[in-house]
């Protein structure tokens, strides 16, 4: 008998708060292996907090299960289990060089050769990264930092990639390039992605499934193609 496929990440009734301020009021969602799942919603809906609840950078309660086992609230453990979180503002190590940032992405890996090979792959994928490998990462433009953050995340060979609003403040062309790369990684390397994105059009374009958050709760969920046709989503988030 075939086993019921288990989601790679499952959140059950997750609550989260910043000090006294409650940000999530019972979010439940599931991300299947190999999928790209988008979190949509207005400012303050709890999208970023949901990612933080997964990586353990916010006070939380409720069930967070990764790959069949509960995930403790600790960023270091989340990283060790194969979850790489590219936070809001990209988390670039600004005073370190581009190359050092990439190496830090592979901090938990023990296979030196694999790391060297992946470094070469990153330089081949984005030649400017290689040319500027010894430049201070803080001197890169916003778009370049976002691409570096993605390449650094890949250096960890993650099973689950958490992307927090990667398009924020970037030129449309850069955003396109970024999501093209995300999609390719998902197709070629099977990286599962949970992405927060305010631009609903874009998010529904690249994702398989999507969740719509409203004031700390899941208001709507479904296949991205279905949500695109949903009248409420169209009116409130897609604007037509």
């Amino acid at each position, binding site marked *: 008998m075939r086993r019921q496929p288990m989601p790679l990440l499952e959140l059950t009734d997750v609550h989260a708060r910043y000090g006294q301020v409650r940000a999530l009021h019972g979010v439940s969602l599931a991300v299947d292996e190999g999928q790209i799942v988008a979190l949509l919603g207005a400012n303050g809906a709890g999208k970023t907090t949901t990612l933080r609840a997964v990586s353990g950078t916010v006070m939380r309660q409720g069930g967070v299960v990764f790959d069949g086992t509960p995930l403790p609230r600790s960023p270091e453990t989340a990283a060790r289990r194969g979850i*790489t979180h590219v936070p809001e503002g990209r988390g670039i190590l600004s005073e370190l060089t581009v190359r050092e940032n990439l190496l830090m992405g592979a901090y938990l890996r023990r296979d030196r050769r694999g790391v060297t090979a992946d470094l070469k792959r990153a330089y081949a994928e984005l030649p400017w990264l290689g040319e500027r490998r010894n430049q201070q990462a803080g001197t890169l433009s916003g778009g370049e930092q976002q691409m570096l953050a993605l390449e650094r995340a890949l250096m960890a060979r993650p099973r689950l990639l958490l992307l927090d609003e990667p398009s924020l403040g970037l030129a449309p062309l850069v955003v396109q390039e970024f999501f093209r790369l995300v999609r390719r990684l998902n197709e070629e390397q099977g990286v599962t992605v949970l992405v927060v994105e305010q631009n609903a059009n874009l998010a529904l374009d690249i994702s398989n499934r999507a969740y719509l958050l409203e004031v700390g709760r899941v208001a709507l969920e479904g296949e991205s193609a279905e949500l695109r046709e949903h009248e409420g989503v169209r009116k409130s988030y897609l604007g037509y």
Partner: protein
Amino acid sequence: MTQFVQQVVVGLGDGSIYASLALALVLIYRATHVINFAQGEMGMFSTYIAWTLIENHGWSFWPAFFFTIFVSFLGGAAIQQAVVRPLARAGELTIVMATIALLVILNGLASWIWKPDEKVLPSPFPTGSWSVGDVQIPQQSVYDLLVVLACVVLLWAFFNFTKLGLALRASAVNPVASRLLGVRVTWMLALGWGVAAALSAVAGMLAAPAQFVFSPSFMQVVIIYAFAAAVVGGIESPAGAVVAGLALGVTINLLGTYVDFVTPDMRLPVALAILLGVLIFRPGGLLGRAVVRRV
């Protein structure tokens, strides 16, 4: 001219002690963003440990030297975990106050354990001089300089060519992002404090023989020179701390030799006057880095 060369060498020897302690201050500043006022007393305490091993347990200098460095490393890491880490949420001013408390406590503890009278730490180096033409080069100064330069090179290699060193720098730059990459940042901070404590142990064990006798307060003048060197060098710059420490040692020795009013008692005020002078013209210090950021 011969006197000039001699004083420069002596200055480099003194300066290397300021440099190693200033480097310890810079390491802690970069990791924890506070000035550790107890840095000198940590070195003093380490020196007493070395003295006990040598005088009471019959160790020879070098085994005692390296064992003391190791114990100091553990002590520094323990101080970070036991005192600094719990205060991390309280803010930087609270941590600074804690280091001042630590200064007084370590000083009192040393007076209580070892009595406040003067002790002698034997010098591991020959006390004689090399004659180069007319110039007498004191050997101890040269060896002090070499020991400190060796420490600096080792540390530089550690920070630039090892994964652990890279993780330590990353933790100092962006602790939150480093945790997301899997770095155990609190361990890294403990490691940073340990390395700083080891460096101040080196400073203490070189300073004690250079001053002939030492007592629980013997590092309190040295630490002020080290503060001056760390700030003049640009508080976040390891290279700046080393260069400024050496330059300060040389400058003070030359002024003491050639300028009449700079008597031994006047050296410290003059050093701090130099500190003020530099800061008025270069508030970021001599090698203070301008970090370029784009958001």
